[in-house]
């Protein structure tokens, strides 16, 4: 609901702003510079639809169509990562767009990417308030109960300047468990990573690690985006 309100407000602001600047336009520079008014009209319409949908959903979370089955996800024969961003009510199945060994970049159909270093989120692109770069722990560190280290996050501020956040983190190995992801059971080690800043803010990341593979995780992306939930559905 909160998101819905923010979005309407935003849409209204954008429309107002446009009314102020009046920018319907056309021309051959068009391919280069799509008439913003049409684009915004589209966005506003989309937002409106989104808002209605989530309101109908009641609880505020988006009401996705029936989730695909494992057979459907495995059909293409490619690895699949599911990413859910609760604050945005979004839920998508991503495929690999770049594989550099320890860092794998996953992309949505519309070109939003998540780069994970051995399953730990290190960069995003296309979310808006993106995680531009970061220093992250290895899986080995995450499996060591009581391990402490620093985590660095770099964000592009709204004024386009780079900002750094430094966290002191501690690992707690919660224990062994079994989880089910799309009708498949995984024996995992449940790990919690608590990170604090001297300034007082706090984030928590959770990992469900199968062997050396992060099978499922809930990781903080950025202030406005909040956490993203990752499920490694198809290897």
């Amino acid at each position, binding site marked *: 609901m909160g998101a819905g309100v*923010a*979005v309407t*407000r*935003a849409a209204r*602001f*954008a429309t*107002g702003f*446009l009314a102020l600047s*009046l*920018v*319907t*336009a*056309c021309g*051959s*520079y068009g391919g*280069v*510079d799509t*008439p*913003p008014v049409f*684009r915004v009209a589209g966005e506003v319409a*989309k*937002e409106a639809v*989104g808002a209605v949908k989530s309101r109908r959903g009641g609880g505020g979370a988006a009401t996705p169509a029936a989730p695909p089955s494992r057979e459907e996800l495995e059909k293409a024969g490619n690895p699949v990562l599911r*990413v859910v961003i609760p*604050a*945005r009510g*979004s839920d*998508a199945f991503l495929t690999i767009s770049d594989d*550099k060994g320890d*860092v794998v*970049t996953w*992309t*949505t159909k*519309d*070109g*939003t990417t998540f*780069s994970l270093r051995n399953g730990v989120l*290190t960069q995003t*692109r*296309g*979310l*808006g*308030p*993106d995680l*531009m*770069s970061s220093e992250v722990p290895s899986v080995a560190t995450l499996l060591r109960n009581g391990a402490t280290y620093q985590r*660095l996050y*770099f964000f*592009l*501020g*709204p*004024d*386009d300047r*780079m*900002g750094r956040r430094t966290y002191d983190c501690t690992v707690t190995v919660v224990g062994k468990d079994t989880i089910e992801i799309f009708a498949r059971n995984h024996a995992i080690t449940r790990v919690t990573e608590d990170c604090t*800043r001297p*300034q007082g*803010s706090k984030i928590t990341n959770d990992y469900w690690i199968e062997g050396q593979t992060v099978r499922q995780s809930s990781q903080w992306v*950025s*202030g406005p985006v909040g956490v993203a939930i990752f499920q490694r559905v198809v290897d």
Partner: protein
Amino acid sequence: MLNSSRRLLAVSAVSTALCAGPALAEITPTLNINGTTGLIDMPSGDAQDDATFSFSTTLVGPITRSTLSFQITERLSASFRFQTLRDWDTLFPDDPSSDDQRNMDIRYQILKESQYVPAVTIGLVDFLGDGGFSSEYIAATKTFKEKVKVTAGLGWGRLGSYGSIGSLFGDRPPLENTEVGKPNSDQWFRGDFAPFAGVEYKINDRWTFKGEYSSDAYELEDETRGIIDRKSPLNFGFEYQRGPYARYGFYALHGSEIGLTFHLILNPKTRATGGVMGPAPSPVMSRPARSSDPEAFDTGWVTQPDAGPLLRTNLAKRLAVDGIVIENLAYTASTVQIRVRNTRIDAGSQAIGRTARALSQVMPASVEVFEIVPVSRGIGASKVTIRRSDLEQLEFAADNSSLLRERVELSDAGPVPENAIGSEGLYPRFGWSLRPSLTMNEPLRGAVRLRLSASYDIRPGLVLSGSISTRILGNGEKLTGSSTGALPPVRSDGKAYTENGNPAVENLTLAWFARPAADIYSRVSFGYLERMHAGISGEVLWKPVESKLALGAELNYTKQRDTDGGFGFDEYDYDVVTGHVSAYYEFGGGFVGQLDVGRYLAGDVGATVSLDRIFANGWSVGAFATVTDVSAEDFGPGSFDKGVRFTIPLNWAIGTEGQRTFGTTLRPASGDGGARLNVDGRLYDVIREFHSGALDSEWGRVWR
């Protein structure tokens, strides 16, 4: 999918979570009906957040006030206000029915609030005007329990006109006519002063109650003009905050009037979308290790005749996605130089990053050095040299933008390499657009014109361009400079130009941009340079890529055009040689100063000082003042030329990529003195974006 919905905004979250951290809970400083930080009609000791840019409009009976305010630094802020007083002829039937006033205010916070110390601000209201709204004040504000703010202050001038308790620095002398428009420093803090006070109570996140005791007697509006009946010094009201941008005020004023206010509160430092949108870049392509695959590093490809066209085609295909056009491509076995025109991405560094990524995917492995030359108006603006192995190494490193910047070399673009593969099919190039344009003379007053523009690039740097426009909407062309007759009407016939020229040829020029030597740029423009003047204009600029200082010179010969927007020169028999030498300096923190000394359109000689705060995301807000040898009488109201200007990138508001902006210049009064030719493509603006000052401030976007 992930970002298609919810794309537009998550603003509330931005300010709290990303930038501010766990901010101390406090009451946001609010604005008053005069569009400046304060209570209802009275000022307070608070200051807005740094860089807050607000637009306020207020309606109180026959009075309308529209104000633009900008928090220039954390402590310093300035406002530009336009007031209309209707029913002006109530007591004097021969007078016009309304009176317009333009005010400029400036205020400085001398003390920030701390546990025991209140915030204290000293301010000058209407310090350049005709004195009708002039006042000075010192105000202190203290917050209690994050709910209540108490303000008390002392005012002089208007703010000392009710309940005065004496005077400190002697009588307030009347303002001489010749002094109008100059800083009225003889009056500052002179004459009677009076106390004012008020309280602000935050009921909840949305609603605020305000009450105040006003020290403004409204003598002009009540006693002199009879347009307001001021019965009481007490004002009350409620304010409603709607989202981060909008605030409404409803007040009972003077015991007799209802006041309504709307504030639009923006801040260039927060992006409406919370971050720059647009799809992810393509990944950097890693080369195999030379030891494991030496064959990949073979240099034989250089001699293949079809290599050039093939590489060019492949690069063009990848770069087209981001609106980047290749002007030239030159390569050896180890180095590639690509000259690109960025037509869409608003940050130069991002365009450079995307170009580097494309090069990593297309160029054979033996090419280690990427030289990227951004081209602006056909000129190579600078050269960014990136080592390919740095790109490969740093793609996923923490703080990769700072690390890359340390290894990147920024230098003069140099000439186009001899072996460059030219731009077949790119030139000549024709483009056109049809779009409305808003001209705003003052808040809420302006005209919408429909403008058809076309350009024909004959070869890089040589452009024939023109535009024609006609008015489609407008709420009055009230703004006309007042020609005093002492100067040729080089600007003051603006009304005639707008009224008579529908449609009008705004400009039709042939312009030639070049880089004749290292760090030197040149421009020659010929034709109908602007709506009012036509002729020839030449400019030279010296600006080393990493220098904070730039020097320029401009020389123009122009004739004044007819008001009908045609090609004639019959109405005015006026021609003039104008020219300036200019110095530009980047002070850091986005502040850019400019000094121009020379001869202006009316033949007057003088200097212009301007200061702009330019934000990495494209916002800019600035002010300028021109003093010439024209006497204050000859200049007319305003005494000398001055004003404020701002530019807002549309992508800041909408979140989509693009380079279009919205902006305007506002002047308290305009005359014919200190007027400069309005020629398109001044060199400093053409190249600044790709020099270190601008590029470094937004360098983080190189990996975006």
